[in-house]
């Protein structure tokens, strides 16, 4: 008998992503330890995981990954240094990754989640004073795969975390972020696009805690769902008692392409401080028929017009990617996915 109970739709936080429905507990229990291909440049050092890991908050599956992975990847970048790292999973399974960016250092992290099968990865990320991490994750379409990534990210004073998540769908894809802004002036800017067709699923769940005052966060997520796919964004913002002067802005928008597709957006605010700025908005709609007609009346064929409007819908979220080369890469993947959706 298996003792492992997988998160399922009865658990509030997993309401739209029923893991129990997607995979057998036995398959989770017997999954091997994940292996990576790691390319680094600049001052990034790579070593085995240390004995003592930082105490970051993880979700249910992150805890499982941390307990079951017997080895992992540790990337470290020293004070004031710069570097880039490219992570690619070569063997699926339970995985663990530790990333430490020391004071004043800058790291660009690219992550390709192009695996099939089952993967469940716990990431611990620690940013020192004024450290910077730019993180881009591209998850290719794999409608047989079950993939869970659980990130715990802690930011010291003045540190900045910028991340973009492009997800093209899996049987079940869950990206979960627990971000703690622990030092004054720390900021986290999250953005992402989910472009889903067929039976694809992608769930991005973010929880940002403004633990101290004068911290900033933004979240901008755009989801497109066609076919029988399902896109989910859950965004929780917590502002701790006394964390005055915190500023948080969240926008999540969904575009539904058919009657059988589904998009669930769930913003959540938990504010215990007095003097804070929080704004959030969530909306799901269809492609605007008037815009479509306008474009077609000027000679743009229907499928091209649809793709153009979808691209326009995603524009501001992809524009959040600062690096021009990476942004162009993400666009080319997005455009390929859109072409399939509008065909």
């Amino acid at each position, binding site marked *: 008998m298996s003792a492992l109970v997988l998160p399922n739709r009865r658990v509030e936080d997993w309401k739209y992503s029923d893991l129990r429905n997607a995979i057998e507990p036995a398959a989770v229990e017997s999954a091997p330890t994940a292996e990576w291909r790691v390319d680094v440049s600049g001052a990034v050092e790579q070593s085995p995981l240390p004995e003592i890991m930082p105490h970051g908050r993880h979700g249910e599956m992150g805890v499982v990954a941390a307990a079951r992975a017997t080895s992992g990847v540790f990337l470290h970048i020293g004070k004031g240094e710069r570097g880039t790292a490219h992570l690619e999973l070569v063997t699926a399974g339970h995985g663990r990754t530790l990333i430490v960016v020391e004071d004043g250092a800058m790291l660009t992290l690219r992550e390709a989640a192009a695996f099939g099968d089952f993967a469940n990865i716990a990431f611990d990320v620690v940013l020192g004073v004024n450290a910077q991490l730019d993180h881009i994750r591209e998850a290719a379409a794999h409608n047989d795969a079950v993939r869970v990534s659980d990130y715990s990210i802690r930011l010291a004073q003045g540190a900045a975390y910028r991340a973009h998540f492009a997800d093209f769908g899996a049987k079940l894809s869950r990206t979960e972020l627990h971000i703690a802004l622990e030092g004054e002036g720390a900021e986290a800017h999250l953005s992402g696009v989910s472009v889903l067709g067929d039976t694809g699923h992608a769930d991005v769940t973010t929880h940002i805690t403004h633990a101290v005052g004068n911290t900033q966060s933004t979240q901008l997520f755009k989801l497109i769902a066609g076919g029988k796919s399902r896109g989910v964004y859950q965004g929780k913002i917590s502002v701790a008692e006394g964390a005055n002067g915190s500023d948080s802005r969240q926008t999540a928008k969904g575009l539904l392409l058919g009657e059988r597709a589904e998009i669930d957006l769930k913003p959540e605010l938990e504010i215990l401080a007095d003097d804070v700025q929080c704004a959030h908005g969530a909306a799901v709609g269809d492609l605007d028929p008037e*815009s479509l007609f306008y474009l077609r*009346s*000027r000679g743009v064929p229907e499928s091209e017009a649809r793709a153009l409007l979808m691209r326009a819908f995603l524009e501001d979220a992809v524009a959040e990617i600062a690096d021009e080369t990476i942004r162009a890469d993400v666009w080319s993947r997005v455009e390929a996915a859109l072409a399939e959706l509008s065909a």
Partner: protein
Amino acid sequence: MLEINDLHVAVGGKEILKGLSLSIAAGEVHAIMGPNGSGKSTLSYVLAGREGYEITSGSIRYRGEDLAAMAPEERAAKGLFLAMQYPVEIPGVTTMNFVKTALNAQRRARGDKEIDALGVLRLVREKAKALHISEEMLKRALNVGFSGGEKKRLEILQMALFEPTLAILDETDSGLDIDALKVVADGVNALRSPERAMLVITHYQRLLNYIVPDRVHVLSAGRIIKEGGKELAHELEAKGYAQIVKDAA
């Protein structure tokens, strides 16, 4: 060029055009005038192929072909252009990119060679200058935050670029200041040729001082109730629609 015969059109189950007939020959400019709600924009949308405008009876032939059977983009590729009364705002698509996409889509459909980015830029700049449209405007999202007059000028810019065979202008003069009106009229007149035709929908005789029509039609309650030469526009301005409708009855 355009032959509309006993056209009946319903929108949302309600009949709006009730037996409209109109024919325009190549080289001609026709004007349609008529009170608010008489069906002028409905006619323009039907000609451009907007969804939800159901032709319940009658026919439209354009250059000898059945227009109703064509998709909107096909009509555009075959030279039909509608300058809309209310141009649509599309965030996330820059004006320049849109113009380039549309121009090349039409060329592709006609089997012409596409124009490269630089070529389009040169072409657009040249036409934009004549219409007093700034570079800055072309970089902005399509029609987003444009003033009423700017939107209308952008419609005319597109007309100048696409060089349509049949141009329909739906109240392009509304919201234009006097100088802009002249600029727009010049743009329209520059396109007049024996191969092209135009249908100008307007409320004001003023525009017709600049774009002198061959024929004027008065549309009321979904039908053409009176036709005449350019002097009919003056008569309308003097008498008002109510009197003309009464005279026609």
